[in-house]
Protein backbone atom coordinates (compact mmCIF):
# COMPACT_ATOMS: atom_id res chain seq x y z
CA UNK A 1 0.00 0.00 0.00
CA UNK A 2 2.59 2.46 1.18
CA UNK A 3 4.86 1.05 -1.48
CA UNK A 4 2.34 1.49 -4.31
CA UNK A 5 2.01 5.12 -3.26
CA UNK A 6 5.73 5.59 -3.44
CA UNK A 7 5.83 3.94 -6.83
CA UNK A 8 3.03 6.15 -8.09
CA UNK A 9 4.79 9.20 -6.78
CA UNK A 10 7.94 8.21 -8.57
CA UNK A 11 5.98 7.83 -11.78
CA UNK A 12 4.56 11.29 -11.20
CA UNK A 13 8.05 12.65 -10.87
CA UNK A 14 8.94 11.08 -14.17
CA UNK A 15 5.86 12.58 -15.85
CA UNK A 16 6.75 15.97 -14.49
CA UNK A 17 10.19 15.58 -16.03
CA UNK A 18 8.74 14.66 -19.40
CA UNK A 19 6.58 17.77 -19.32
CA UNK A 20 9.56 19.97 -18.58
CA UNK A 21 11.67 18.39 -21.27
CA UNK A 22 8.73 18.45 -23.63
CA UNK A 23 8.46 22.17 -23.23
CA UNK A 24 12.15 22.64 -23.90
CA UNK A 25 12.06 20.56 -27.02
CA UNK A 26 8.93 22.22 -28.30
CA UNK A 27 10.47 25.63 -28.43
CA UNK A 28 12.82 24.68 -31.28
CA UNK A 29 11.45 23.79 -34.70
CA UNK A 30 13.77 20.84 -35.17
CA UNK A 31 12.78 19.05 -31.99
CA UNK A 32 9.21 20.21 -31.48
CA UNK A 33 7.64 16.96 -32.55
CA UNK A 34 9.69 14.81 -30.22
CA UNK A 35 8.84 17.20 -27.41
CA UNK A 36 5.16 16.74 -28.00
CA UNK A 37 5.52 12.99 -28.12
CA UNK A 38 7.54 12.92 -24.93
CA UNK A 39 5.04 14.92 -22.98
CA UNK A 40 2.23 12.73 -24.34
CA UNK A 41 4.07 9.69 -23.03
CA UNK A 42 4.40 11.35 -19.65
CA UNK A 43 0.72 12.06 -19.67
CA UNK A 44 -0.09 8.46 -20.49
CA UNK A 45 2.13 7.26 -17.67
CA UNK A 46 0.41 9.59 -15.25
CA UNK A 47 -3.01 8.33 -16.28
CA UNK A 48 -2.05 4.69 -15.91
CA UNK A 49 -0.44 5.34 -12.55
CA UNK A 50 -3.53 7.14 -11.32
CA UNK A 51 -5.71 4.25 -12.31
CA UNK A 52 -3.73 2.12 -9.86
CA UNK A 53 -4.46 4.54 -7.03
CA UNK A 54 -5.86 2.77 -3.98
CA UNK A 55 -8.68 5.32 -3.79
CA UNK A 56 -9.85 4.49 -7.27
CA UNK A 57 -12.42 1.79 -6.80
CA UNK A 58 -15.05 2.39 -9.42
CA UNK A 59 -14.15 2.10 -13.08
CA UNK A 60 -17.47 2.50 -14.92
CA UNK A 61 -17.47 6.27 -15.14
CA UNK A 62 -13.80 6.33 -15.74
CA UNK A 63 -14.00 3.99 -18.66
CA UNK A 64 -16.99 5.73 -20.12
CA UNK A 65 -15.33 9.09 -19.79
CA UNK A 66 -12.07 7.90 -21.27
CA UNK A 67 -13.66 6.20 -24.25
CA UNK A 68 -16.05 9.01 -25.09
CA UNK A 69 -13.36 11.65 -24.59
CA UNK A 70 -10.79 9.80 -26.66
CA UNK A 71 -13.17 9.32 -29.56
CA UNK A 72 -14.33 12.90 -29.62
CA UNK A 73 -10.79 14.16 -29.16
CA UNK A 74 -9.45 12.05 -31.99
CA UNK A 75 -12.28 13.00 -34.29
CA UNK A 76 -11.80 16.67 -33.61
CA UNK A 77 -8.08 16.37 -34.17
CA UNK A 78 -8.30 14.56 -37.47
CA UNK A 79 -11.36 16.12 -38.96
CA UNK A 80 -10.43 19.72 -38.45
CA UNK A 81 -8.93 21.31 -41.53
CA UNK A 82 -5.47 22.72 -41.04
CA UNK A 83 -6.73 26.26 -41.43
CA UNK A 84 -9.00 25.95 -38.39
CA UNK A 85 -6.26 24.87 -36.03
CA UNK A 86 -6.23 27.94 -33.81
CA UNK A 87 -9.93 27.72 -32.98
CA UNK A 88 -9.60 23.99 -32.39
CA UNK A 89 -6.90 24.65 -29.82
CA UNK A 90 -9.23 27.18 -28.23
CA UNK A 91 -12.02 24.67 -28.02
CA UNK A 92 -9.87 21.94 -26.52
CA UNK A 93 -8.60 24.41 -24.03
CA UNK A 94 -12.13 25.21 -22.97
CA UNK A 95 -12.71 21.53 -22.31
CA UNK A 96 -9.66 21.48 -20.08
CA UNK A 97 -11.15 24.33 -18.09
CA UNK A 98 -14.42 22.43 -17.87
CA UNK A 99 -12.62 19.39 -16.49
CA UNK A 100 -10.95 21.43 -13.76
CA UNK A 101 -14.16 23.06 -12.73
CA UNK A 102 -15.86 19.70 -12.58
CA UNK A 103 -13.09 18.23 -10.46
CA UNK A 104 -13.61 21.04 -7.98
CA UNK A 105 -17.32 20.40 -7.98
CA UNK A 106 -16.82 16.69 -7.49
CA UNK A 107 -14.54 17.24 -4.52
CA UNK A 108 -17.05 19.59 -3.02
CA UNK A 109 -19.94 17.22 -3.60
CA UNK A 110 -18.01 14.31 -2.19
CA UNK A 111 -16.81 16.12 0.94
CA UNK A 112 -18.88 19.23 1.55
CA UNK A 113 -17.12 19.96 4.79
CA UNK A 114 -13.88 21.66 3.94
CA UNK A 115 -11.56 23.99 5.81
CA UNK A 116 -11.71 27.60 4.75
CA UNK A 117 -8.55 27.52 2.69
CA UNK A 118 -9.80 24.52 0.80
CA UNK A 119 -13.07 26.34 0.24
CA UNK A 120 -11.16 29.22 -1.25
CA UNK A 121 -9.26 26.91 -3.53
CA UNK A 122 -12.41 25.17 -4.70
CA UNK A 123 -14.03 28.49 -5.45
CA UNK A 124 -10.94 29.63 -7.28
CA UNK A 125 -10.76 26.49 -9.36
CA UNK A 126 -14.39 26.80 -10.32
CA UNK A 127 -13.96 30.45 -11.20
CA UNK A 128 -10.87 30.04 -13.35
CA UNK A 129 -12.04 26.81 -14.93
CA UNK A 130 -15.38 28.32 -15.89
CA UNK A 131 -13.93 31.52 -17.29
CA UNK A 132 -11.57 29.39 -19.34
CA UNK A 133 -14.48 27.36 -20.62
CA UNK A 134 -16.77 30.18 -21.67
CA UNK A 135 -13.97 32.43 -22.87
CA UNK A 136 -12.60 29.66 -25.02
CA UNK A 137 -16.00 28.97 -26.49
CA UNK A 138 -16.36 32.61 -27.52
CA UNK A 139 -12.86 32.67 -28.98
CA UNK A 140 -13.62 29.53 -30.91
CA UNK A 141 -16.86 30.89 -32.27
CA UNK A 142 -15.20 34.11 -33.32
CA UNK A 143 -12.47 32.35 -35.21
CA UNK A 144 -14.89 29.95 -36.83
CA UNK A 145 -16.71 33.09 -37.95
CA UNK A 146 -19.95 31.46 -36.87
CA UNK A 147 -22.50 32.23 -34.18
CA UNK A 148 -20.71 35.40 -33.07
CA UNK A 149 -19.42 38.30 -35.17
CA UNK A 150 -15.68 38.29 -35.62
CA UNK A 151 -15.24 41.96 -35.08
CA UNK A 152 -15.18 43.38 -31.56
CA UNK A 153 -18.65 43.51 -30.00
CA UNK A 154 -18.96 46.74 -28.10
CA UNK A 155 -21.71 48.20 -25.98
CA UNK A 156 -21.77 51.06 -23.53
CA UNK A 157 -20.95 50.31 -19.92
CA UNK A 158 -18.99 47.25 -20.84
CA UNK A 159 -16.41 47.62 -18.15
CA UNK A 160 -18.88 48.37 -15.42
CA UNK A 161 -20.91 45.24 -16.14
CA UNK A 162 -17.77 43.14 -16.03
CA UNK A 163 -16.67 44.66 -12.78
CA UNK A 164 -20.08 44.12 -11.21
CA UNK A 165 -20.09 40.48 -12.22
CA UNK A 166 -16.63 40.03 -10.79
CA UNK A 167 -17.70 41.64 -7.52
CA UNK A 168 -20.67 39.31 -7.27
CA UNK A 169 -18.37 36.34 -7.80
CA UNK A 170 -16.09 37.58 -5.04
CA UNK A 171 -18.95 37.95 -2.60
CA UNK A 172 -20.13 34.48 -3.52
CA UNK A 173 -16.65 33.17 -2.87
CA UNK A 174 -16.50 34.59 0.62
CA UNK A 175 -19.94 33.29 1.38
CA UNK A 176 -19.07 29.86 0.11
CA UNK A 177 -15.64 29.43 1.63
CA UNK A 178 -16.49 30.53 5.15
CA UNK A 179 -18.80 27.54 5.54
CA UNK A 180 -18.80 25.04 2.74
CA UNK A 181 -21.00 22.73 4.72
CA UNK A 182 -23.84 25.27 4.97
CA UNK A 183 -27.02 24.18 3.20
CA UNK A 184 -26.95 27.05 0.70
CA UNK A 185 -23.30 26.50 -0.17
CA UNK A 186 -24.08 24.39 -3.17
CA UNK A 187 -26.39 27.01 -4.58
CA UNK A 188 -23.87 29.72 -3.98
CA UNK A 189 -21.27 27.73 -5.83
CA UNK A 190 -23.81 27.16 -8.58
CA UNK A 191 -24.42 30.88 -8.94
CA UNK A 192 -20.70 31.55 -8.88
CA UNK A 193 -20.27 29.07 -11.69
CA UNK A 194 -22.97 30.75 -13.75
CA UNK A 195 -21.54 34.18 -13.14
CA UNK A 196 -18.06 33.01 -14.01
CA UNK A 197 -19.44 31.64 -17.25
CA UNK A 198 -20.89 35.05 -18.02
CA UNK A 199 -17.64 36.72 -17.07
CA UNK A 200 -15.69 34.65 -19.54
CA UNK A 201 -18.05 35.75 -22.31
CA UNK A 202 -17.94 39.36 -21.25
CA UNK A 203 -14.18 39.41 -21.25
CA UNK A 204 -13.61 37.91 -24.67
CA UNK A 205 -16.49 39.18 -26.74
CA UNK A 206 -15.18 42.75 -27.08
CA UNK A 207 -11.89 41.58 -28.54
CA UNK A 208 -11.42 41.46 -32.30
CA UNK A 209 -10.95 38.24 -34.21
CA UNK A 210 -7.41 39.05 -35.18
CA UNK A 211 -6.36 39.12 -31.56
CA UNK A 212 -7.94 35.78 -30.74
CA UNK A 213 -4.70 33.78 -30.86
CA UNK A 214 -3.34 35.90 -28.04
CA UNK A 215 -6.56 35.47 -26.10
CA UNK A 216 -6.43 31.73 -26.57
CA UNK A 217 -2.88 31.67 -25.35
CA UNK A 218 -3.91 33.59 -22.25
CA UNK A 219 -6.87 31.28 -21.64
CA UNK A 220 -4.48 28.40 -22.05
CA UNK A 221 -2.44 29.81 -19.26
CA UNK A 222 -5.63 30.09 -17.20
CA UNK A 223 -6.47 26.46 -17.76
CA UNK A 224 -3.03 25.60 -16.44
CA UNK A 225 -3.69 27.68 -13.36
CA UNK A 226 -7.03 25.96 -12.94
CA UNK A 227 -5.36 22.57 -13.12
CA UNK A 228 -2.79 23.75 -10.62
CA UNK A 229 -5.51 24.94 -8.27
CA UNK A 230 -7.36 21.68 -8.52
CA UNK A 231 -4.07 20.02 -7.65
CA UNK A 232 -4.17 21.86 -4.36
CA UNK A 233 -7.71 20.61 -3.78
CA UNK A 234 -6.75 17.00 -4.05
CA UNK A 235 -3.17 17.61 -2.91
CA UNK A 236 -1.65 16.16 -6.03
CA UNK A 237 1.93 17.22 -6.77
CA UNK A 238 1.82 16.40 -10.45
CA UNK A 239 -1.21 18.56 -11.05
CA UNK A 240 0.54 21.40 -9.32
CA UNK A 241 3.76 21.03 -11.24
CA UNK A 242 2.15 20.56 -14.65
CA UNK A 243 -0.45 23.23 -14.04
CA UNK A 244 2.11 25.74 -12.86
CA UNK A 245 4.33 24.95 -15.83
CA UNK A 246 1.50 25.58 -18.24
CA UNK A 247 0.31 28.64 -16.35
CA UNK A 248 3.71 30.29 -16.27
CA UNK A 249 4.88 29.32 -19.70
CA UNK A 250 1.50 30.35 -21.09
CA UNK A 251 2.00 33.81 -19.74
CA UNK A 252 5.44 33.99 -21.27
CA UNK A 253 4.14 32.72 -24.57
CA UNK A 254 1.37 35.30 -24.52
CA UNK A 255 3.94 38.01 -23.97
CA UNK A 256 6.06 36.71 -26.80
CA UNK A 257 3.09 36.63 -29.13
CA UNK A 258 2.09 40.15 -28.23
CA UNK A 259 5.63 41.33 -28.81
CA UNK A 260 5.68 39.67 -32.20
CA UNK A 261 2.52 41.62 -33.02
CA UNK A 262 3.99 44.79 -31.61
CA UNK A 263 1.20 45.07 -29.04
CA UNK A 264 1.13 44.96 -25.27
CA UNK A 265 -0.97 42.40 -23.46
CA UNK A 266 -2.94 45.15 -21.81
CA UNK A 267 -3.59 46.63 -25.21
CA UNK A 268 -4.97 43.32 -26.43
CA UNK A 269 -6.97 42.38 -23.37
CA UNK A 270 -8.16 45.71 -22.03
CA UNK A 271 -7.39 48.69 -24.21
CA UNK A 272 -7.86 46.27 -27.04
CA UNK A 273 -11.59 46.67 -26.57
CA UNK A 274 -12.24 47.45 -30.16
CA UNK A 275 -8.66 47.96 -31.31
CA UNK A 276 -8.30 47.84 -35.06
CA UNK A 277 -5.89 45.41 -36.60
CA UNK A 278 -2.81 46.87 -38.30
CA UNK A 279 -3.19 45.42 -41.80
CA UNK A 280 -6.61 46.50 -43.02
CA UNK A 281 -8.04 45.83 -46.44
CA UNK A 282 -7.74 48.62 -48.98
CA UNK A 283 -9.32 49.61 -52.24
CA UNK A 284 -7.39 47.14 -54.27
CA UNK A 285 -8.68 43.62 -54.07
CA UNK A 286 -6.99 41.44 -51.53
CA UNK A 287 -5.54 42.11 -48.16
CA UNK A 288 -2.17 43.26 -46.97
CA UNK A 289 -0.35 40.71 -44.89
CA UNK A 290 2.48 42.29 -42.93
CA UNK A 291 5.04 39.99 -41.39
CA UNK A 292 7.90 40.32 -38.98
CA UNK A 293 11.51 39.41 -39.70
CA UNK A 294 11.33 36.18 -37.75
CA UNK A 295 8.51 34.91 -39.89
CA UNK A 296 10.25 36.04 -43.03
CA UNK A 297 13.24 34.13 -41.74
CA UNK A 298 11.26 30.92 -41.51
CA UNK A 299 10.02 31.35 -45.03
CA UNK A 300 13.52 31.99 -46.34
CA UNK A 301 15.05 29.29 -44.21
CA UNK A 302 12.85 26.70 -45.85
CA UNK A 303 13.36 28.00 -49.40
CA UNK A 304 15.48 26.18 -51.94
CA UNK A 305 15.68 29.06 -54.37
CA UNK A 306 15.40 32.75 -53.70
CA UNK A 307 15.39 35.58 -56.20
CA UNK A 308 16.17 39.04 -54.93
CA UNK A 309 14.80 42.03 -56.84
CA UNK A 310 16.59 45.21 -55.80
CA UNK A 311 15.12 48.65 -56.45
CA UNK A 312 15.67 52.28 -55.69
CA UNK A 313 14.85 51.72 -52.01
CA UNK A 314 17.90 49.50 -51.66
CA UNK A 315 20.02 52.43 -52.78
CA UNK A 316 18.23 54.89 -50.53
CA UNK A 317 18.80 52.78 -47.47
CA UNK A 318 22.35 51.96 -48.62
CA UNK A 319 21.69 48.35 -47.81
CA UNK A 320 23.93 46.86 -50.47
CA UNK A 321 26.39 45.43 -47.98
CA UNK A 322 23.68 43.96 -45.83
CA UNK A 323 22.02 42.28 -48.75
CA UNK A 324 25.28 40.57 -49.58
CA UNK A 325 25.50 39.34 -46.05
CA UNK A 326 22.02 37.93 -46.28
CA UNK A 327 22.97 36.26 -49.52
CA UNK A 328 25.96 34.66 -47.83
CA UNK A 329 24.00 33.28 -44.89
CA UNK A 330 21.30 31.98 -47.18
CA UNK A 331 23.82 30.28 -49.39
CA UNK A 332 25.40 28.71 -46.36
CA UNK A 333 21.95 27.41 -45.57
CA UNK A 334 21.91 25.64 -48.92
CA UNK A 335 19.63 28.08 -50.70
CA UNK A 336 20.31 29.18 -54.26
CA UNK A 337 20.27 32.98 -54.32
CA UNK A 338 20.04 35.03 -57.50
CA UNK A 339 19.57 38.70 -58.15
CA UNK A 340 17.18 39.79 -60.85
CA UNK A 341 17.89 43.31 -61.99
CA UNK A 342 15.22 45.17 -63.86
CA UNK A 343 16.59 47.50 -66.51
CA UNK A 344 14.92 50.59 -65.07
CA UNK A 345 15.41 49.83 -61.40
CA UNK A 346 16.87 52.75 -59.50
CA UNK A 347 17.28 56.26 -60.82
CA UNK A 348 19.96 55.90 -63.43
CA UNK A 349 20.95 53.18 -65.88
CA UNK A 350 23.05 50.63 -64.07
CA UNK A 351 22.18 52.02 -60.64
CA UNK A 352 21.75 48.55 -59.17
CA UNK A 353 24.99 47.35 -60.75
CA UNK A 354 26.92 50.07 -58.99
CA UNK A 355 25.49 49.05 -55.65
CA UNK A 356 25.88 45.34 -56.06
CA UNK A 357 29.41 45.66 -57.40
CA UNK A 358 30.33 47.82 -54.46
CA UNK A 359 29.08 45.08 -52.19
CA UNK A 360 31.13 42.55 -54.12
CA UNK A 361 28.19 40.51 -55.29
CA UNK A 362 29.63 38.32 -58.00
CA UNK A 363 28.44 38.99 -61.52
CA UNK A 364 27.45 35.34 -61.79
CA UNK A 365 24.71 35.87 -59.26
CA UNK A 366 23.00 38.46 -61.44
CA UNK A 367 20.31 37.32 -63.83
CA UNK A 368 18.60 39.40 -66.45
CA UNK A 369 14.90 39.95 -66.47
CA UNK A 370 14.32 37.91 -69.58
CA UNK A 371 16.24 35.01 -68.15
CA UNK A 372 14.54 35.02 -64.78
CA UNK A 373 10.90 35.41 -65.81
CA UNK A 374 10.45 32.01 -67.44
CA UNK A 375 11.76 30.31 -64.30
CA UNK A 376 9.79 32.39 -61.85
CA UNK A 377 7.13 29.73 -61.22
CA UNK A 378 9.73 27.45 -59.72
CA UNK A 379 11.15 30.08 -57.41
CA UNK A 380 10.29 29.54 -53.77
CA UNK A 381 10.67 33.10 -52.60
CA UNK A 382 11.01 36.31 -54.53
CA UNK A 383 12.32 38.97 -52.20
CA UNK A 384 11.72 42.53 -53.36
CA UNK A 385 13.91 45.09 -51.71
CA UNK A 386 12.79 48.67 -52.14
CA UNK A 387 11.48 48.07 -55.66
CA UNK A 388 8.00 48.92 -56.75
CA UNK A 389 7.26 49.90 -60.35
CA UNK A 390 9.53 47.25 -61.75
CA UNK A 391 7.47 44.44 -60.26
CA UNK A 392 4.05 45.97 -60.79
CA UNK A 393 1.86 43.31 -62.43
CA UNK A 394 -0.49 46.05 -63.61
CA UNK A 395 2.00 46.50 -66.45
CA UNK A 396 0.88 43.11 -67.73
CA UNK A 397 -2.72 43.03 -66.66
CA UNK A 398 -4.21 46.46 -66.59
CA UNK A 399 -4.55 48.22 -69.93
CA UNK A 400 -5.43 51.46 -68.20
CA UNK A 401 -2.21 51.54 -66.18
CA UNK A 402 0.45 54.05 -67.20
CA UNK A 403 2.86 51.15 -66.93
CA UNK A 404 0.87 49.01 -69.38
CA UNK A 405 3.15 47.18 -71.72
CA UNK A 406 6.35 47.60 -69.80
CA UNK A 407 8.12 44.31 -69.22
CA UNK A 408 8.45 43.65 -65.50
CA UNK A 409 10.12 41.11 -63.30
CA UNK A 410 7.21 38.78 -62.73
CA UNK A 411 7.72 38.41 -59.05
CA UNK A 412 4.06 37.66 -58.46
CA UNK A 413 4.52 34.28 -60.05
CA UNK A 414 6.93 33.08 -57.39
CA UNK A 415 5.50 30.81 -54.70
CA UNK A 416 5.95 33.43 -52.01
CA UNK A 417 6.76 37.10 -52.41
CA UNK A 418 8.32 39.12 -49.63
CA UNK A 419 8.27 42.86 -50.20
CA UNK A 420 10.52 45.08 -48.14
CA UNK A 421 9.61 48.73 -48.04
CA UNK A 422 8.81 51.33 -45.45
CA UNK A 423 5.17 51.99 -46.12
CA UNK A 424 2.45 51.52 -48.68
CA UNK A 425 3.59 54.57 -50.62
CA UNK A 426 3.98 54.48 -54.37
CA UNK A 427 7.04 54.30 -56.60
CA UNK A 428 8.41 56.73 -59.17
CA UNK A 429 5.54 56.19 -61.60
CA UNK A 430 3.07 57.04 -58.85
CA UNK A 431 0.73 54.11 -59.35
CA UNK A 432 -0.76 51.62 -56.91
CA UNK A 433 0.87 48.18 -56.98
CA UNK A 434 -1.61 45.27 -56.84
CA UNK A 435 1.25 42.89 -56.10
CA UNK A 436 1.20 44.01 -52.50
CA UNK A 437 -2.36 42.72 -52.12
CA UNK A 438 -1.84 39.31 -53.63
CA UNK A 439 -2.49 36.26 -51.47
CA UNK A 440 1.09 35.01 -51.83
CA UNK A 441 2.66 38.36 -50.89
CA UNK A 442 3.94 39.29 -47.46
CA UNK A 443 4.96 42.84 -46.62
CA UNK A 444 8.01 43.30 -44.42
CA UNK A 445 7.69 46.96 -43.50
CA UNK A 446 10.66 49.06 -42.43
CA UNK A 447 13.82 50.57 -43.78
CA UNK A 448 15.34 48.00 -46.10
CA UNK A 449 18.67 47.97 -44.30
CA UNK A 450 17.10 47.46 -40.90
CA UNK A 451 14.88 44.66 -42.18
CA UNK A 452 17.80 42.97 -43.88
CA UNK A 453 19.90 43.23 -40.77
CA UNK A 454 17.12 41.66 -38.74
CA UNK A 455 16.94 38.81 -41.21
CA UNK A 456 20.68 38.25 -41.08
CA UNK A 457 20.58 38.13 -37.29
CA UNK A 458 17.75 35.60 -37.42
CA UNK A 459 19.89 33.39 -39.60
CA UNK A 460 22.93 33.80 -37.42
CA UNK A 461 21.15 33.25 -34.13
CA UNK A 462 19.48 30.11 -35.28
CA UNK A 463 22.56 27.97 -35.37
Amino acid sequence: MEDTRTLLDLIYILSAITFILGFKLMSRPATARQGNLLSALGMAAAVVATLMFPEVVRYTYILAGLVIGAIIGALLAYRTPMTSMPQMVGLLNGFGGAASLLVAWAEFVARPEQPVYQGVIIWLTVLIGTVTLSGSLVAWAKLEERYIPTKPVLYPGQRIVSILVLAAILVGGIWFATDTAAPEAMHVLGVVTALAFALGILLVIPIGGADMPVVISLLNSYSGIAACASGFIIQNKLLIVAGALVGASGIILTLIMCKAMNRSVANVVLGGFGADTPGKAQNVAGEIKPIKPDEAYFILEAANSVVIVPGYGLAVSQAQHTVRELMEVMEKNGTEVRFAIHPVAGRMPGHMNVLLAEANIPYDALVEMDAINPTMDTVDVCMIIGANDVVNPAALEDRSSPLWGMPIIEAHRARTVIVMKRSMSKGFAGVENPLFFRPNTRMLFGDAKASLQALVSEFKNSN
Partner: protein
Amino acid sequence: MEILIFLLFILVLAIFLGFEVISKVPSLLHTPLMSGSNAISGITIVGALVAAGLGEGEEAAALIGGVAVAFATINVVGGYLVTDRMLNMFKKKDK
Protein backbone atom coordinates in the same frame (compact mmCIF):
# COMPACT_ATOMS: atom_id res chain seq x y z
CA MET B 1 0.13 22.30 7.02
CA GLU B 2 3.47 20.67 6.50
CA ILE B 3 2.13 19.21 3.28
CA LEU B 4 0.80 22.55 2.13
CA ILE B 5 4.25 24.04 2.60
CA PHE B 6 5.69 21.30 0.52
CA LEU B 7 3.11 21.90 -2.18
CA LEU B 8 3.89 25.58 -2.07
CA PHE B 9 7.58 24.89 -2.46
CA ILE B 10 6.79 22.75 -5.43
CA LEU B 11 4.49 25.41 -6.86
CA VAL B 12 7.12 28.10 -6.62
CA LEU B 13 9.77 26.00 -8.27
CA ALA B 14 7.40 24.92 -11.02
CA ILE B 15 6.36 28.49 -11.76
CA PHE B 16 9.96 29.56 -12.10
CA LEU B 17 10.66 26.62 -14.27
CA GLY B 18 7.66 27.53 -16.40
CA PHE B 19 8.99 31.02 -16.90
CA GLU B 20 12.46 29.82 -17.70
CA VAL B 21 11.74 26.95 -19.94
CA ILE B 22 10.26 29.03 -22.75
CA SER B 23 12.45 31.89 -23.71
CA LYS B 24 12.77 32.52 -27.43
CA VAL B 25 10.14 30.85 -29.52
CA PRO B 26 9.92 31.64 -33.23
CA SER B 27 6.45 32.82 -34.15
CA LEU B 28 6.13 29.81 -36.39
CA LEU B 29 5.91 27.67 -33.26
CA HIS B 30 3.53 29.86 -31.31
CA THR B 31 0.41 27.93 -32.23
CA PRO B 32 1.87 24.44 -31.86
CA LEU B 33 3.44 25.34 -28.57
CA MET B 34 0.19 26.76 -27.31
CA SER B 35 -1.57 23.66 -28.42
CA GLY B 36 1.01 21.38 -26.84
CA SER B 37 0.92 23.14 -23.53
CA ASN B 38 -2.85 23.06 -23.74
CA ALA B 39 -2.61 19.31 -23.93
CA ILE B 40 -0.44 19.29 -20.84
CA SER B 41 -2.99 21.37 -19.00
CA GLY B 42 -5.24 18.38 -19.52
CA ILE B 43 -3.29 16.87 -16.61
CA THR B 44 -6.37 17.72 -14.69
CA ILE B 45 -7.46 14.33 -15.97
CA VAL B 46 -5.58 12.87 -13.04
CA GLY B 47 -7.84 14.71 -10.66
CA ALA B 48 -10.86 13.74 -12.69
CA LEU B 49 -9.88 10.09 -12.58
CA VAL B 50 -9.59 10.16 -8.82
CA ALA B 51 -13.01 11.78 -8.53
CA ALA B 52 -14.64 9.44 -11.01
CA GLY B 53 -13.18 6.47 -9.19
CA LEU B 54 -14.84 7.37 -5.90
CA GLY B 55 -16.70 4.42 -4.45
CA GLU B 56 -20.00 3.71 -2.71
CA GLY B 57 -22.10 6.63 -1.52
CA GLU B 58 -20.30 9.10 -3.65
CA GLU B 59 -22.39 8.51 -6.74
CA ALA B 60 -22.94 12.16 -7.48
CA ALA B 61 -19.30 13.12 -7.17
CA ALA B 62 -18.21 10.13 -9.18
CA LEU B 63 -20.65 11.02 -11.92
CA ILE B 64 -19.36 14.57 -12.07
CA GLY B 65 -15.91 13.08 -12.06
CA GLY B 66 -16.86 10.91 -15.01
CA VAL B 67 -17.93 13.92 -17.01
CA ALA B 68 -14.72 15.63 -16.00
CA VAL B 69 -12.78 12.63 -17.29
CA ALA B 70 -14.53 12.90 -20.61
CA PHE B 71 -13.75 16.58 -20.98
CA ALA B 72 -10.18 16.16 -19.85
CA THR B 73 -9.68 13.27 -22.22
CA ILE B 74 -10.92 15.30 -25.15
CA ASN B 75 -8.45 17.95 -24.16
CA VAL B 76 -5.56 15.53 -23.78
CA VAL B 77 -6.16 13.33 -26.79
CA GLY B 78 -7.28 16.11 -29.09
CA GLY B 79 -4.51 18.38 -27.89
CA TYR B 80 -1.65 16.00 -28.50
CA LEU B 81 -2.95 14.83 -31.83
CA VAL B 82 -3.61 18.33 -33.14
CA THR B 83 -0.19 19.43 -32.05
CA ASP B 84 1.39 16.51 -33.76
CA ARG B 85 -0.47 17.21 -36.97
CA MET B 86 0.61 20.79 -36.95
CA LEU B 87 4.23 20.00 -36.29
CA ASN B 88 4.20 17.41 -38.97
CA MET B 89 3.76 20.21 -41.47
CA PHE B 90 6.98 21.90 -40.55
CA LYS B 91 9.16 19.05 -41.63
CA LYS B 92 12.41 20.47 -42.94
CA LYS B 93 12.82 20.60 -46.64
CA ASP B 94 14.99 17.74 -47.78
CA LYS B 95 18.31 19.17 -48.77
